[in-house]
Each structure stands twice: as C-alpha cells, then as structure tokens.
C-alpha cells in the first residue's frame, strides 16, 4: 500500500474549491432551466395538440437514446460551425445538459399530471374555471408533490452529468481534479479526494429531497 500524500490537494485547495463552486452553479442553473422547460413541455405533452405531442415524444425518445457526452460535444464543437457563434464551454455545457435533462423532466411531469384523476379537472371546469386555471391551481400543485422523488433523482443525475462537462474543459470540479492529478503525479490522492467531494455533494442532496418528500407526501394524496 503506497503512502497517501494529500499535499497536492492542500496546495491547490482554492483551485479545487472554485471548481466545486462551478459544479454547483452549473448543476443549479441546468436543473432550474430543465424543470422550467420540462414543466411547460410536459403540460404540452399531455394537453397539447396531436402534432405537438408527437414532436415532444420524438424529442424525449431521442434524448433517451443519445448519451449526454454526445450532446455536450455536439453543442460545443458543431453548433459554432453551423451558426458561427462560439459559446464558452460553460454555456455549451449548460445548454447541452439542459436539453438532455429536460427530456427526463418532461416524462416525470407527464406521469405526475396524468396521475391526477380526470374527475378533478372536470370538477374545476364545472365550477367555471378555465383550463389554465385548472392546470395551475388543481393539477400542478398536487402533481408537483408526487413528482418530488423522481425530480430528486434527476437532480442527482444532473450533478453527475456536470462531471461529463469536463471533456469540453468546463472549469468544474472534475476537470480541476484531473488537472491537479496530472500536474502533481498523485492521481490516487486527488481522485480519491474527488470521490469524497462528490459523495458529500450528492448523498445529502438526495437524502434531503427524500426527507422533504416524506414530510409533504400527504399533501399530494387525493
């Protein structure tokens, strides 16, 4: 068993810490964008016109069949050739991860919305509410609570996906750890440390979502 020397981690702690910051920022931004877009598309998937439904289904199934790595690399390298606009790696990663995660959110929103019994919509309409009112005031609040566990696992997937952004040199934690590992020639220490960091980032996050869900699950019952 070789010695465990953590000096490279201590020496570049600021470099690594800002990487963790970028990982968190990228995760929060892509998650927020995906939830927003996914909710809109998910509702359109259920209540929209038939052609719209088909287009959204096709988009979702396409994202289910293409690796996120491929989407990230394509957005970063191919989009500038097509449009002539160069995005910085961070923005490319944000766009690519959002496109990928939105597809998962669409499916979750669809399942959540469809789980609300139709009678409730009819009751709302019978009371004189408009469709947007029914969706916003009756369907979404209940569906949102039922969706929470699934959204929690998507959040965990999102954080893990940001590590893949290291292949286009987004200065997030995975990339930073890789840099420190190769410059210090101490990959064992640095990568093991990285495992700790990611675990400490992901484990409490998923546990918190589960905890919140257990506290509010009864609100989603009907």
């Amino acid at each position, binding site marked *: 068993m070789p010695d465990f020397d953590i000096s490279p981690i201590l020496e570049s702690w600021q470099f690594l810490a800002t990487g963790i910051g970028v990982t968190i920022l990228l995760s929060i931004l892509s998650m927020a964008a995906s939830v927003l877009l996914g909710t809109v598309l998910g509702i359109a998937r259920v209540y929209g016109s038939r052609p719209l439904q088909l287009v959204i289904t096709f988009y979702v*199934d396409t994202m289910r069949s293409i690796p996120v790595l491929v989407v990230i*690399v394509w957005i970063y*390298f*191919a989009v500038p050739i097509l449009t002539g606009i160069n995005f910085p790696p961070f923005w490319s990663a944000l766009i690519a991860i959002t496109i990928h995660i939105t597809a998962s959110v669409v499916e979750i929103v669809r399942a959540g919305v469809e789980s609300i019994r139709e009678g409730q919509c009819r009751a709302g309409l019978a009371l004189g509410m408009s469709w947007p009112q029914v969706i916003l005031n009756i369907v979404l609040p209940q569906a949102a609570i039922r969706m929470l566990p699934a959204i929690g696992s998507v959040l965990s997937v999102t954080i893990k996906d940001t*590590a893949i952004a290291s292949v286009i040199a987004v200065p997030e934690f995975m990339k930073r750890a*890789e840099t420190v590992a190769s410059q210090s020639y101490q*990959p064992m220490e640095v990568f093991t440390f990285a495992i700790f960091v990611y675990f400490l980032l992901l*484990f409490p996050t*998923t546990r918190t979502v589960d905890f919140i869900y257990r506290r509010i699950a009864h609100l989603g019952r009907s």
Partner: protein
Amino acid sequence: MTLDWSIVWLNKEALAEGALMTIVLTVLTMGLAVPLGIVLAFMRLSKWRSLALLSQCFVELFRNIPLILIVYWSFYVIPILIPVQFSAFTTGLVALVLCVSAYNAETFRAGINSVRHGQTNAGLALGMSQFQVMKEIILPQAARRVLPILATTWVSLFKDTSLVSVIAVGELSHVALQIRSQSFRVLEMLTAMAVIYWMMGYPQAKLSDWVRKKFEVKE
C-alpha cells in the same frame, strides 16, 4: 461552410467496430452486474448486520459519484493499489460494472421488498421454509417488477458506455472523436456519431417502454 459527408462512409468499418464495442461493453457489463446486484441485494437483506452494512456502503457510494470519476479512478488508482496492469477495456468494464451493480442491487432489493410481508407470513404459516418462501412466492413476483427497471437501466448503461472513451477504450464515441480530430470534419463526424447512437438507442428505448407496459403490476 463546405460539408463532406463521404468521411463517414470512408470510415464505416472503424465506426462499425466502435458500435460493436459499445454493444459488447453493454452486454458484458449487464451480464456481470446482474449477478453482482443480486448478491449485493441479498447481502443487504441478510440477518448479519455487517454484511448488510457493507452492501449498503458499496451501493450508496457508487450511486452517489459520477461514473466518469469511477472511470478515471479505476484507470489511475487500481494499478497503484494492485500490481496488475489491466487493459483500458478491462478497466472501463470494471468501472461500469461497479456502477451498474450498485443500481441493480437497489432494483433487486426494492423488487423483493415490494412483495408484501403478509405473503411471507402466509407461506411460513403453511409450513414452507424461508428458502421455499423466497423461491416459490417472493422471487417470481419480484422478477416481474424488476424487469422493467432493468430495461431502463440497460438503456442508461448503453449510453453510459460512451464515458469510457475518456480512457481510450475503442467504443463508438472514442472512434468517432478520433476520426474527427484526424480529419477535421468536425460537424460531419459528430453528427454521424449522434445519428448512430440514435439508431441503436431508439429501438432499445422503445423496447424498454414495451417491457414496462407488458410487465406492469397493478395491485
């Protein structure tokens, strides 16, 4: 902007080999991760606390770190810890198996736990042994519930094999990215890569939907 799509056709053999490697990786990983997942699930449910704890730690660890980090870790750290030099392929396979068996363990555990406890009691009351109850009552029902989740994991795994490209395993994305950097036909190669993944992944995604519908359990 001039596009030259012939580059894709010129490299058809390399791309086909890469696609084959992607399939081989997916099949081998699942083939190893299913038995390992079953072992981990039974460890988790066993009476011995230390076994259960060990399994829980393994599962929680590998479910809560990015696969790409497991790949890097396996590539750089395993050779330091044990004096055996694995090929990139074996290393990638080990990383994938570690990750997927953790997911499978949770799947199997949830499947076994989803069979109501009353059924176990009923079996025991009828004079069956613990083993018989597991074999005759719980596992057949659990299997139905596990299969759709395994199908979903399969589709994710198929996509995740792309991540072993970072340690130069010659699967589809590594091959395509290599041709891209040698030929500078960036747009063509990246689009071809996406389309090939799509052609392989789309039927699998649809198949997993079908499995889900077919085996759905309603209580």
